[in-house]
């Protein structure tokens, strides 16, 4: 919301600088995000044209003699609209400083210069040159007699302003008009707001339907006391009929006749210019001015274009459509509220009018609508049509139903004034059920206990009165009837906020409260997730965070389960389904890294995957995913990563949870290499799968022939292991030395090394560890065989081992190897 400093100052009666005002607005919760200064040119005065003669050489230039109050001078002027002698214009005298034309530009200083050979020591200025508006071709000419020659620009025209850009929260529809903002300002500065100038209100006929102009004559309110007959309105009286009073609880209409469409006067154009609204014509500008003043949109119809001289408010019929002012044909449904004339729709209520009844250059009689539409209804229609307008923005936040007469009176007055017409004295107001602001009690004790400080006893009443509530004292507090322009005030807490924000949050001293400790504390699973991230980085992996929504195509490329949790309204196909695997996101990151010449990508992510659940909510599973791609480095040697790099990263990440077991997965998941992948266990708990990516999948994911290894483990399963494992107890450190024997065995290639080690270990209670130290496969060995060599550590916790005991155990081991593993000793 843009707000004019000059306007706020007039309305609020607050005399403060723009900066002071901005600070108070922010303190009141109307956050001023920026200030824009609209400067006034210096050294510019009103001048009266006294003589005009042609330029000696140029047809388009003229030499104009002006009286600037302290004498006369001749200036060269190229404008087509120099007035006859006696007309008043604006003269930038020698040394005058004109504001820069562009933001950040240099100001322009008037110096003596020759224009086509004739010296000119000054300039007759246009509105554009003075930064007063967009004002068409030619210089500024005062209408009528104008101020005396020599009057400074700043005194001659209401020029110069500062505009606040306010970041308005959606609970403050009242501040979508200057009056609402001014009211907060007056409360903040503790001044009494002046009476609003709305002109005399028309007299109202009330009911659910009625006729404007049903009497023969009308008292002229705003144009000099002449009497006017309704016969002056060519189509006669206007009938009004509201069919849906739920969607339209109040509808008022007035009329202004005999207007002439033309440009707006300077003050109106300039006000709109500063507020970023383009001036259209006097009548349209008037409706915008009233909206920006009251925050209440009004709509002007060309009276004569209303077919049947009738306005009807009703919901649309299915299949009905309307061509709105923006030229778009819009399909409606039976939730949309329409304003219709005798033949069909002329506006979507509270959203946008139709071209068929629009005010145009030829308009002479205007019907003005000022209504209160149900905010939810306007919002539903506006959202469904994707049509967000200044009007719908205000109606859906809630305008003040009880401001209708004042707004209508003000609108009629301004239109009559700027359009040179006559406002009819009688209006129609259809308001079957009066809307009242809730009556809310505010206990002083509740106020102080919620804020945690003591508040001056008379402050609540002062604040609420200043904001427009009717306040009466009750025992221990006050009772407030809240104003209907504040639909956000409905209960005690709301009033507490009003008192706090106007009194000032800075008066509430910070005090750290006692926080009572809970018995449970942070759930251990969350602490585990954090520890898991730490240990994964310890294993040399960088943490990635990837989007949880992916494309179905990415899941397919990753050979992951197809998504069964999809978005209704995704931003794009690329982010349209919830992931069932973390592979697509991590693979993208890794491929991106390799393409940008990173030698390797070692990544992990702890994130959720989503599957359809029993309930309306999906099942969310937390996954620990690891992806390795590119080169692994051994000293200066580089090679592609493989399964064993991944296995190491998993073991390093999970070392605290106990011994991991990798079992060859006879039925590996589709994304993994069928010969180079494993199922991962701790004890009997299956954690997930790990392996090199299936080459087809790696190709589909565009790894460009580089190998990548990927594991995805269940964090829930890991956490279950953690719980089952409990707290690790201190081990007893052996006091006696171990004795080492080596054994090399020729075995079937298919026999898993860990199985061999486990078999060897089980042969004697004296065996403390079996450590594989060499794997040999090669031509010198029989087909299908390989050699595994182990260090066997024998230890007796009770005493020093003798060679004899070790020899006995070791020969038992060798025999067992032969028998159980069909191993041949090498």
């Amino acid at each position: 919301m843009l707000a004019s400093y000059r306007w706020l100052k007039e309305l609020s009666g607050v005399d403060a600088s723009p900066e002071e005002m901005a600070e108070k607005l922010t303190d009141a919760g109307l956050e001023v995000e920026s200030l824009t200064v609209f400067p006034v040119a210096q050294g510019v005065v009103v001048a009266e044209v006294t003589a005009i003669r042609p330029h000696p050489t140029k047809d388009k230039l003229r030499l104009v003699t002006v009286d600037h109050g302290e004498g006369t001078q001749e200036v060269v002027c190229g404008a087509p609209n120099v007035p006859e002698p006696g007309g008043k214009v604006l003269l930038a005298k020698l040394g005058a400083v004109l504001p820069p034309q562009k933001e950040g530009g240099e100001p322009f200083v008037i110096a003596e210069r020759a224009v086509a050979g004739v010296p000119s020591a000054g300039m007759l200025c246009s509105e554009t040159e003075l930064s007063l508006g967009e004002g068409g071709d030619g210089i500024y000419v005062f209408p009528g007699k104008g101020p005396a020659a020599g009057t400074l620009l700043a005194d001659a025209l209401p020029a110069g302003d500062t505009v606040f850009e306010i970041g308005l929260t959606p609970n403050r529809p009242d501040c979508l008009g200057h009056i609402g903002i001014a009211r907060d300002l007056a409360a903040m500065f503790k001044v009494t707001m002046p009476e609003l100038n709305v002109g005399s209100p028309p007299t109202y006929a009330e009911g659910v339907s009625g006729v404007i102009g049903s009497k023969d004559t009308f008292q002229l309110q705003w144009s000099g006391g002449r009497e006017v007959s309704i016969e002056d309105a060519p189509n006669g009286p206007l009938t009004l009929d509201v069919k849906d009073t739920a969607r339209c609880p109040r509808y008022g209409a007035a009329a202004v006749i005999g207007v002439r469409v033309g440009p707006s006067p300077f003050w109106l154009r300039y006000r709109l210019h500063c507020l970023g609204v383009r001036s259209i014509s006097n009548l349209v500008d008037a409706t915008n001015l009233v909206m920006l003043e009251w925050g209440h949109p009004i709509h002007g119809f060309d009276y004569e274009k209303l077919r049947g001289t009738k306005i009807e408010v009703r919901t649309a019929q299915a299949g009905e459509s309307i061509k709105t002012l923006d030229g778009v044909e819009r399909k409606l449904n039976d939730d949309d509220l329409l304003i219709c004339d005798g033949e069909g729709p002329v506006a979507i209520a509270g959203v946008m009018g139709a071209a068929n009844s629009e005010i145009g250059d030829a308009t002479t009689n205007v019907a003005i609508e000022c209504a209160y539409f149900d905010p939810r209804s306007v919002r539903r229609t506006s959202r469904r049509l994707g049509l967000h307008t200044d009007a719908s923005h205000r109606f859906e936040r809630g305008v003040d139903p009880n401001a209708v007469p004042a707004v209508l009176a003000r609108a009629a007055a301004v239109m009559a004034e700027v359009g040179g017409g006559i406002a009819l004295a009688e209006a129609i107001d259809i308001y079957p059920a009066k809307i009242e602001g809730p009556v809310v009690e505010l206990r002083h004790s509740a106020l102080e206990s919620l804020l945690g400080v003591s508040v001056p006893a008379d402050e609540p009443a002062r604040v609420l009165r200043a904001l427009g509530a009717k306040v009466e004292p009750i025992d221990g507090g006050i009772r407030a009837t809240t104003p209907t322009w504040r639909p956000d005030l409905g209960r005690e807490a709301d009033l507490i906020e009003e008192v706090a924000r106007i009194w000032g949050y800075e008066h509430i001293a910070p005090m750290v409260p006692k926080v009572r400790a809970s018995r449970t504390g942070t759930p251990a699973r969350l602490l585990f997730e954090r520890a898991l991230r730490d240990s994964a980085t310890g294993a040399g992996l960088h943490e990635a965070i990837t989007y949880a929504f992916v494309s179905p195509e990415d899941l397919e490329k990753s050979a992951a389960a197809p998504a069964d949790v999809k978005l209704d309204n995704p931003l794009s196909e690329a982010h349209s389904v919830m992931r069932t695997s973390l592979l697509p996101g991590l693979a993208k990151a890794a491929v991106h890294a390799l393409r940008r010449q990173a030698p390797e990508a070692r990544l992990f992510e702890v994130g959720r995957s989503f599957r359809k659940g029993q309930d309306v909510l999906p099942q969310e599973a937390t996954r620990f995913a690891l992806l390795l791609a590119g080169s692994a480095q051994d000293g200066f040697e580089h090679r592609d990563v493989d399964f064993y790099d991944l296995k190491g990263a998993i073991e390093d990440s999970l070392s605290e949870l106990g011994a991991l077991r990798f079992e060859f997965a006879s039925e590996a998941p589709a994304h993994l290499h069928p010969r180079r992948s494993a199922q991962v266990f701790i004890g009997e708990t299956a954690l997930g799968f790990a392996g090199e990516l299936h080459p087809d999948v790696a190709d589909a994911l565009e790894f460009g022939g580089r190998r990548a290894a990927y594991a995805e483990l269940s964090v829930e399963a890991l956490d279950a292991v953690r719980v089952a494992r409990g707290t690790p107890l201190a081990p007893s450190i052996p006091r006696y030395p171990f004795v080492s024997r080596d054994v090399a065995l020729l075995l079937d290639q298919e026999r898993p090394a860990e199985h061999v080690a486990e078999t060897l270990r089980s042969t004697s209670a004296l065996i403390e560890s079996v450590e594989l130290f060499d794997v040999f496969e090669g031509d010198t060995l029989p087909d299908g065989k390989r050699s595994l060599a182990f260090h066997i550590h024998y230890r007796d916790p009770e005493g020093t081992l003798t060679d004899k005991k070790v020899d006995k155990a070791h020969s038992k081991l060798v025999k067992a190897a032969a028998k159980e593993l069909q191993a041949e000793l090498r």
Partner: protein
Amino acid sequence: MSDAVERFEKGLAEIDGGFAQQYAEAADEESLRAINARFVGAHGSLTSLMKLMRELPGDRRREFGQRANEIKGKVTAGFDARLAAIAAAEREAELNGPAIDVTLPARRHAPGRLHPVTRVKNELLDIFASLGFEQADGPEIDHFANCFNKLGFPPDHPATDEHDTFFVAGSDGKALLRTHTSTIQVREMEKRKPPLAVVAPGVVYRRDDDATHSPMFHQIEGFLVDEGVSFSGLKGVLTVFLERLLGDEIEVRFRPSYFPFVEPGAEVDVRRPGGAWMEVLGCGMIHPVVFEAVGYDPSAVSGFAFGMGLDRLAMVRYGIPNIKALYDNDVRFLGAF
């Protein structure tokens, strides 16, 4: 017999006269040991002489034995001395030899890095833990009611405009990707009874995708519910939190603002002395409608809640110019923190 004596005499004399010279000629430990073996090895000359002993006449054996041992002692001492000298020379040579190139790359297993958002998240969790707040979490896809109705969003109200929501297909608008972590406030309150002091970080989603918005981002929600919790307490906790996070020289400003689930509501700005205000979080006293929605009695308990974006905090802390960088997962970026 005399032949044996003669051989013995001669042998001893040879050894006695020669070992010192030979040891002295040994250049390194290996040759020294080879030379030593010639005397005292299994087939060494002195060992052989010892074996000759039993051929000596009985009355001379003791004398020769003594002499042989004497010589053996000298040989051993000579060996030890030479060995020590060689070792000393080698050590000397090593210490005076060429230096290594200390600029060659290290042999190491480089640890990975936590994502910048995780780093700030951990920092915040630690500060709040020290203030007595425990951590909680909740599902990323939640009921519409938990995200809006129970938090006091009026139906068809523009307050939801900032929460442009992704809905789950087929749920008839009932399941959505949470737009804020305040859903966890609702869930924790429904699950537990006061006192509650909780912070809940998490991923949230909004249908915004431009230079300054990512459709997925991170928030942290916090709330304290107990008897007698006040706005003054809210200011106290958040001021201490921000001072610990950003340094105690910062200024903190509480400015009235609006969120449907708090009343009074505020936004909090911070600035360094002389700097510009920067908005960091939203907060307020939990609205009675929220307490009513979760089955608490608003006349018996009160509470405050706050929420802040983690992404922007990470961006400010680490000088990250674009929010998209947080989700591009460029390894050069991820490895930098």
